């Protein structure tokens, strides 16, 4: 997730442009269409706030890691959380600052229930000039009983 937002955006990227939900949704819809891997996983936008974003990944047969149980792959949840965390950096900046994942740690607390969509909610809790610090959870219906917990850092690659 780096330069793409600027290309699809018709607003001035130097200003806060993500402050209202309609603009965010319009942007995210275009963004999703421009990111093939998000489409391959079926990842979609749910909602966002000043420093957080929530995405969802519907249950699908091609996400399964254990055919005997129907449990989806932890790697797919990792993708969902990487994406949600990246979006939380956008909403925190209020603009589409290019950034790259430095590192991401995912603790898998329990398997996601087969058949259930997984939601990934991430917040950017600290922003410095060059680094964004993120944390978040993945859940399959009840945020109080998450399936995964994530912490990570992003490098703001556009920072001078």
């Amino acid at each position, binding site marked *: *997730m*780096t*330069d*793409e937002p600027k*290309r699809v955006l018709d607003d001035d990227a130097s200003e806060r442009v993500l402050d209202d939900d309609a603009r965010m949704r319009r942007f995210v819809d275009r963004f999703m269409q*421009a*990111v*093939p*891997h*998000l*489409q*391959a*996983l079926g990842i979609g936008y749910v909602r966002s706030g000043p420093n957080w974003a929530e995405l969802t990944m519907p249950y699908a*047969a*091609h*996400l*399964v*890691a*254990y*055919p005997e149980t129907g449990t*989806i*792959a*932890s*790697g*797919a949840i*990792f*993708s*969902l959380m*990487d*994406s949600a965390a990246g979006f939380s950096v956008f909403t925190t900046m209020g603009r589409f600052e290019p950034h*790259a*994942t*430095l*590192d*991401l*740690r*995912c*603790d*898998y607390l329990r398997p996601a229930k087969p058949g259930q969509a997984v939601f990934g909610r991430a917040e950017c809790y600290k922003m410095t000039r060059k680094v964004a610090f993120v944390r978040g959870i993945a859940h399959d219906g009840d945020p109080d009983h998450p399936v995964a917990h994530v912490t990570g850092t992003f490098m703001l690659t556009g920072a001078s």
Partner: protein
Amino acid sequence: MSALPPYALMLGIRVGEDAVLVMPFSPHLIGSPGRLHGGAVAGLLELAANLAVRDALAEKSVVLKPVTVTVDYLREGAMVDTFARAHINRLGRRVANVRVEAWQTDAGKPIAAAQLNIILER
């Protein structure tokens, strides 16, 4: 090697020579323009770790549960084939600790590295 799960097949991953996993480039792996999505690379790393532990275990009935996965992204993933190899740091009775690296054109220049703890349920 064990049969690959649907998620691995979706990523297009296959088992190469010398226990190296290969994820051939495909457009559906792209994140931002011209680059692989970090999540696809993480999926490859996790799978390499799981298969390495599975192969190292004599008892095939053991259930593997990755519990912590940390990925460091070292270089941009280009639109070419990606390879991954796992190294088992420790294979205990209850837990395996594994390091995995992914690279593209040069094995000496990894694009990502992962560290995993995998719980072994016997």
